[in-house]
């Protein structure tokens, strides 16, 4: 490794990193503080002498308790998770195959098809939900998780396809050719040689797809109606925003609880990049 002077490490590494960490995490700290702040403090004047915006002396779990007791939050969490995982898997499957075909195989109209897949991603989703509602009704998918599991891939697949295409292109063609000379079939070379190398790309596409599904709001709002079928964003927004009074404590508790489980899963994947990679790239 390259050795650096100590002050250089601080200026070019630790300080910038610290700034990134603080900047990124401050809003979370803010959510947390809000979620454990008792209501009495939330409504206290900010000019009051006792005001302590950055911490609280009487932390409370009441907002978390209310969230669990008065709404079907755990249910929303599960719905969101299920829908996100299913639509991500579908999209990864499609994107992986399509990405490989577009990156590696020669066939008529490859360019046109690639562009067409891409163009579908350009279609503005804001108004797409109205005609899409028609399709959902025709397939009788309204108010079922499938309404979302099948529509989310429409914006996930193009991304997965193109991202994976990018990855496949960075993998030297020789790798496949060697395998083919050794007697592997085209399909075998693809699944056994190329796909394993593309794992970081697949994970990255997966994370992206998962997050987009986790986040999605307008389709989930329009296509689902039963309270127990809702996803986290829609459930929290529709049950915790009461016209002109927000339940800030619960809202923030919901935001935190809605992200921590995913964060844990991600932290595993992020490491997987690092450890799983070094070996596979060497060749």
């Amino acid at each position, binding site marked *: 490794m390259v050795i650096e002077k100590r002050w250089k490490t601080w200026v070019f590494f630790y300080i910038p990193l610290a700034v990134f960490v603080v900047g990124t995490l401050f809003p979370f700290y803010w959510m947390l503080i809000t979620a454990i702040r*008792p*209501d*009495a403090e939330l*409504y*206290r*004047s*900010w*000019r*009051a002498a006792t005001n302590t915006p950055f911490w609280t002396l009487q932390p409370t779990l009441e907002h978390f308790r209310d969230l669990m007791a008065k709404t079907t939050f755990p249910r929303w969490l599960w719905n969101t998770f299920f829908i996100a995982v299913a639509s991500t898997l579908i999209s990864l499957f499609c994107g992986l195959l399509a990405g490989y075909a577009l990156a590696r195989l020669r066939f008529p109209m490859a360019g046109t098809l690639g562009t067409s897949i891409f163009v579908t991603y350009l279609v503005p989703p804001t108004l797409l*939900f*109205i*005609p899409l*509602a*028609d399709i*959902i*009704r025709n397939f009788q998918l*309204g108010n079922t998780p499938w309404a979302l599991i099948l529509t989310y891939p429409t914006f996930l697949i193009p991304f997965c396809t193109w991202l994976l295409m990018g990855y496949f292109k960075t993998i030297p063609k020789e790798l496949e050719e060697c395998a083919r000379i050794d007697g592997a079939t085209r399909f075998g070379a693809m699944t056994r040689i190329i796909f394993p190398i593309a794992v970081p790309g697949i994970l990255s596409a997966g994370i992206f797809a998962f997050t987009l599904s986790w986040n999605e709001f*307008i389709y989930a*709002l*329009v296509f689902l*109606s*039963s*309270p127990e079928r809702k996803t986290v964003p829609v459930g929290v*927004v*529709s*049950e915790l*925003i*009461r*016209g*002109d*009074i*927000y339940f800030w404590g619960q809202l923030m508790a919901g935001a935190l609880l809605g992200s921590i489980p995913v964060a844990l899963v991600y932290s595993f994947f992020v490491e997987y990049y690092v450890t799983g990679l070094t070996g596979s790239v060497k060749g």
Partner: protein
Amino acid sequence: MKRRIFLRTAGVAGILAAGRAPAFAQGTRLNILRWVDFIPACDVELKRQAPEASKALGAEVVFEFINANDLQPRITAAIQSRSGPDIIHMLHNWPHLYENGLVEVNDLAEWQAKDQGGFYAQSEAYVRVGGRFMALPHSIVPGLIAYRKSWLTEVGATTFPKTYGQTLGHTFGDAPAWAYPLLWNFGGMETDKNGKTALDGKGALEAVKFMTAFWKDACDEGGLAWDDTNNNRAFLGGEISATLNGASIYIAAKRGQDKIKDEKGEPMVRDIQHARLPAGPAGSWSYHTAFSHGVMKYGKNPKLAKDFLKWFHGKEQFSRWFEVAEGFSVGATKQWERHPLWTTIDEPMKGFRTAPDNSRVIGYAGPPSAKATEVYSKYVIVDMFAKGAQGTKAEDAVKWAAGELYKIYG
């Protein structure tokens, strides 16, 4: 189908009298989409009523509550794809907007008006499209100025306190409820009686000038970014002393007496009073949020939906809900002014009793048509005042707004 015949012969009253639920056809459901009420107890009451309604109607009655801001995408998708809830809660003049997706309910409206002392003008104008009732008026949420008595006496009762907070952001509630009446109080109007643009008169100019001076003088400049919640919190946090709002500030202060205190540590609720908007040269008008229920045309059971509304808007059921609302929502009809609730209610809430009697509708002096909605949802009137408050010359602000109106109304 059996159920329908049964209903026709026996009627809801018959079932109620029998006091026993009929075995209802499997899978007959009535879905009702409503906003999430500002007063959480109101939704609890509706959830309590649902099984009663199911029993009375012989169909499973299911309420769904969503944030008011999200109602419109749901309605739009429902009408366009011809599937969705059977009954949808409508705000403002939405029945005009969604006319083609709604079932006419003249018979119900006639019944309700007769049964409950006649509709308020605003409620009727909003659901009545060219002589036909396209939705059934349910309630009105009046907006009055909530103010702190102690702060007002400090400054002297004749002037507004220096700490007025007004929402001028893009909100569905408080901002228009301020902007429209201000225009009317100075004699301004969007359109003439025939629905042609008439904003470029003296009234609008005076109103904007007043607003600009008032804003500089007394208002929290953050109001330009406020939504319907900001003023509540600013008020309850003691940052402002007066703001135009529904009764939710008072009710929140009352329910949270032990948490929401004033500067002296007393419960703030004791210091809150309500008043109408100050009158202008052309009178005193207000704009309240009117609510109605629309029966959706695509629904498979319009008859059942209507029966439900008759049950739901009937005196007995409505009064239970009305009592829970504690004056936050008032009836769409005048009978509810005489409800015993008003004699026992807290003094500061009494102003809400007759609040809807001086309200006008958007689009005034023309009809509250879909075009008025376009003006409303482009926030032309709100932004006219916002521009003034931000320093645009009053003449230019009015000219801009009138230009936008010409494009819409012609």
